Structures are given as structure tokens and as C-alpha cells.
């Protein structure tokens, strides 16, 4: 009779880290589908390519670190990082740019810090931010929605654009609504969108994409993979701040709805900022964390150099997460006061 002597508990809730990651990946698929619907094959090719690269880089590093491949690749964290990065990238980004991004995300931002659970920054966002500051030209060449530009890129064309260095036809490119809005000059917001049907259609495409990510986020909430604190605080803060400025000067500032439905807001709120490794831990900390990201997004969007700001905001707050954790510790049962900070 081989009986084991083990520490309690002897029962375990089903569900592993890998399952969590898989659920998050599944929840991101509607968003990816919507992107494909509006922007053609590019996002899909990007996503597949990035996920493959991510797994490859992870495998190489694990091999170098002499870790078992199957065990660590099976947690799907690398795949998720690759997918999230791809979702944030422009649809027809040249392959080498994606490669650099994934390399930095997996190798430098994740594995060099010790692998899953040890990285202080969101790997996907590190990769994205690095690409954004290094290759501003490529990173801002967005395609327009197909129905607007009318130019259908076939799957082969898309592959050619991405991998063969074929330039993206000018007819296909179009600035994102956020960029358009940033450079609207003297026009008021209403005038800007009334300017052309194309712009408005582009705006609607982005709103649809955000809606899809919102749906995925709600799925994650329902499955209790994430809690409401971070996305709730983020969206609420962004809504309130943009609402305040919109209320004060509607002609120059975007409406709260505009801010909530463009750019990578929903992706950021539900998929990026909620990355548990790099976010604050306690519920109070999560609220502060999410709210600060929302505030930073608005500040950088409105007064910064970059049209969208999810990556930078998330990274800045990643930096502050340990600090938040130390100052938002819950009150332990039987104690009068929550302890603050950490004793040296």
C-alpha cells in the first residue's frame, strides 16, 4: 500500500493556469474576428505569425534555461502574449517589425526577468511600446476598413505585403480615428466627422472592434477570470475625465463615448491592464491601478505626442503596482489596522 504523506489540502479546484490563459485567448477571438472583418487578412496573419514566433522564442529560451518545454509552453502564456501584441499592431506590419516586437516581449520583457510571474512589465506592451518608439513610420501606417477604402487585399496580397516587403498600397492606408482627431486642427469634433463619410465609417469600424473586445471582457468577467475592479475603474475614470472636458468644451474635446470606443481601450481595459502578473493585487489597489491608467490614457491622448496611450499608461502603472500593493494591503482578520508598507 503506497500511501503518500502530503500536506493538506488534498482536494483541488479544477482549472489551471493554462486553462485561464486559454479562456483569455478565447475571449480575444471575437475582437480578432472583427478586426479581420474590417481590415482584411492582415490582423489574422499577424496574429498567427506573432503567436508562432512567441512560442518559438519561448521554446528557445526555455531550452537555454534547461527547462522542460512542454510544461512551460503548456501554460499558454507565451501564446497569449503573442496574440495580445498582434492585436495591438497595425494590420499590415512588415514581418521583421513583428519579429522584433515579439522578441523583445518574450525574451527581454518576460524570460530575462525569470519567466511567467516574474516580469514586472506587461510583455506585450513592452514589445508594442518599443516598436512604437523605434519604428514610428511603420507603426502608424494603419489600413482603413475595407468597406471604406474599397480596396480588397486578397490573402496572398496580404502575405506579400507583410512578408515580401511589398509596400501597402496608399489606397488601403488610412489614419485611425484617434490620429485624425488629434490632427483635426481648427475643426470642431462635429465638423470633423461630418467632413466625410469615410472618416465616420472608419470611426464606426473601430467602435465595432471595441464592442467585440468588450464582449470578450464581459465573458472573462462572467467566468471570473478577471475581476471588475481594473476595467471598471479604468473605463469609469476615462468616462468621467473625458466627460468633464467634453462638458466644458464640446467642440474641441472628444465625447466620452468617442474616447471609450476608439483605439485600444477595450482591449487594454479587459485584456492588457488585467494581466495579473503586472497589475496591483488587492481590490483597493486594483481600483487605484485602473483609475490611474484611465487618467493617464486621457492625459497622453489629449496632450501627449502619441494618438493612443494604452501601452504607455499600462507600463507606467505596472511600474507603480508594487507600490500600490504595499499601500493597499487588506486588513487581516483580527487586526485593527491594515499594515502599510513593508518592514525592512
Amino acid at each position, binding site marked *: 500500500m503506497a500511501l503518500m504523506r502530503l500536506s493538506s489540502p488534498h482536494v483541488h479546484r479544477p482549472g489551471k493556469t493554462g486553462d485561464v490563459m486559454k479562456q483569455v485567448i478565447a475571449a480575444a477571438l471575437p475582437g480578432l474576428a472583427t478586426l479581420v472583418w474590417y481590415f482584411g487578412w492582415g490582423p489574422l496573419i499577424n496574429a498567427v505569425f506573432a503567436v508562432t514566433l512567441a512560442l518559438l522564442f519561448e521554446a528557445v529560451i526555455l531550452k537555454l534555461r534547461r527547462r522542460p518545454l512542454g510544461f512551460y509552453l503548456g501554460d499558454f502564456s507565451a501564446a497569449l502574449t503573442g496574440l495580445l501584441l498582434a492585436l495591438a499592431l497595425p494590420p499590415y506590419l512588415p514581418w521583421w517589425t513583428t519579429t*522584433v516586437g515579439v522578441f523583445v516581449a518574450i525574451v*527581454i520583457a518576460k524570460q530575462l526577468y525569470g519567466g511567467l510571474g516574474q516580469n514586472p512589465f506587461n510583455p506585450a506592451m513592452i514589445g508594442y511600446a*518599443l516598436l512604437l*518608439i*523605434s*519604428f*514610428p*513610420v*511603420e507603426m502608424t501606417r494603419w489600413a482603413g476598413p475595407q468597406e471604406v477604402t474599397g480596396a480588397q487585399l486578397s490573402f496572398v496580397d496580404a502575405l506579400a505585403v507583410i512578408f515580401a516587403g511589398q509596400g501597402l498600397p496608399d489606397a488601403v492606408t488610412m489614419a485611425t480615428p484617434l490620429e485624425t482627431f488629434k490632427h483635426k486642427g481648427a475643426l470642431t469634433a462635429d465638423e470633423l466627422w461630418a467632413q466625410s463619410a469615410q472618416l465616420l465609417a472608419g470611426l464606426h469600424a473601430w467602435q465595432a472592434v471595441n464592442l467585440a473586445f468588450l464582449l470578450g471582457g464581459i465573458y472573462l468577467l462572467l467566468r471570473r477570470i478577471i475581476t471588475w475592479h481594473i476595467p471598471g475603474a479604468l473605463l469609469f475614470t476615462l468616462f468621467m475625465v473625458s466627460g468633464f472636458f467634453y462638458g466644458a468644451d464640446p467642440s474641441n474635446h472628444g465625447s466620452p463615448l468617442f474616447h471609450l470606443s476608439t483605439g485600444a481601450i477595450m482591449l487594454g481595459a479587459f485584456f492588457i491592464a488585467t494581466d495579473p502578473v503586472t497589475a496591483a493585487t488587492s481590490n483597493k489597489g486594483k481600483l487605484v491601478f485602473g483609475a490611474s491608467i484611465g487618467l493617464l490614457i486621457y492625459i497622453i491622448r489629449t496632450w501627449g505626442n502619441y494618438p493612443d496611450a494604452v501601452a504607455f499608461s499600462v507600463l507606467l502603472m505596472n511600474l507603480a503596482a508594487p507600490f500600490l500593493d504595499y499601500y493597499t494591503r487588506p486588513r487581516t482578520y483580527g487586526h485593527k489596522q491594515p499594515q502599510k508598507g513593508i518592514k525592512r
Partner: protein
Amino acid sequence: MADYRKITLDGLWHNNPALVQLLGLCPLLAVTGSVVNAIGLGLATTLVLVGSNLAVSLIRNLVPDAVRLPAFVMIIASYVTCVELLMQSLTYDLYQILGIFIPLIVTNCAILGRADAFARKNPVMPAVLDGLMMGVGFSVVLVLLGGLRELLGQGTLFSDMQLLFGPEAAGWKLTLFSDYPGFLFAVLPPGAFVGMGLIIAVKNIIDARRKARTERQPQPVEDGGSKRVRVTG
């Protein structure tokens, strides 16, 4: 009797100011965007190091301990001023590029550190050699990092060498990749940190390998307890 071989190896490798002592990182990270910048700063730093070590070693028995640091700083500042003036006259463009980092050599801990840790305890010859080797070690890292960042950031090597070596050096530029998109990250400060980290990592790997090799021949442990003393009567 000073061990010149040890001083040389210390400066270049074992106790490299940039890789091991991690001194003088501010100019190191700031100006190593290209090889020419790195060489310029490396030369300037080496000059000051040699000069200050020499002077400190000469006055080492005259300066009371309490005021040694102000005295050293005065010496270093004087040398830096000389170097600054020299650069203004000889390589004005490079001087413009390096800007504030030339006067800031005064505050480079590597220099003050060597003055305080080595030169003030050693005679002139070892002190000068130490200054030279530390300077060379520092410069090598500067150039290495500059090369790395220039290569990654712009896809070139040895560009703008005319700033330092006269017009004929303009042709030294090597373009390794034509049509290189430019990797801005490498040129920006974060790239410097990452590059520096990689160089240190490489050095550590080499050291670890060497150590592992020497450890393969186990040294017999001396008999334990030989150093024991009696606590009680």
C-alpha cells in the same frame, strides 16, 4: 613592489570601472550612441584619469586625510578644464556633440574612485599605469557599447569619424545594412541600458566559465580546526 600585470588586468577586465565597478555610468550611457562619441569621451576620460592619478600620487603624502577629497576634486577639475580646452581647439564639433558630458567628467566616480582607492596609496608609476589601464578599460566598454548601439540603431559603424580624426576619416564609415530602417530604441537611453546589461552578462558568462574551469581541479581543504582557539581556561 607593485604588480604591474595585476594592475593592467584589473583595469582592463577584473575590476573594469564600467563593467564591474559600474562607475561613471551617466556619461557612459548618455554618449555611447555612436563609436566616435565613445572614442571621444573615452580619450578624454583616460587623459584625465592618468593625469589625476599622477598628481594625486605625487601629493599623496602631503595632503591630510580629512581634506583629501576636495583636493582630489580640485586636481581632477583642473585636468578636465585642460581637456575641455584641448577639445575645443582640436575637435570642436565633437566637443559640441559631447557637450555637458566633458565638464561632467569631474564628477565621474571612476576618476575620483581611482584617485582615492589607488593613487593615494601607491607610488607614481603604478598610479599612472592604473589610471591608464582603468581609462583604457572604460574606453573599451564605451567603444563597444557605442559600436553596438550605432550598429543596431543606424546600421552603420565608424560614422562621423572626421569629427575626431580629420576629414580623411570621413570615408571610414561602414554601412553594414543598406536600407536599414533604423532601430531608434537602440539609440535612445533605454537601449543603452539594455546594451550595457548584455555586455555585463557576457562578461559574467566568460568569468563563470573560467571559474568553472579552474574549479575543476579541486584544491585540498586545509585541516579544519587548526585555527581554533580556546575560549575557556
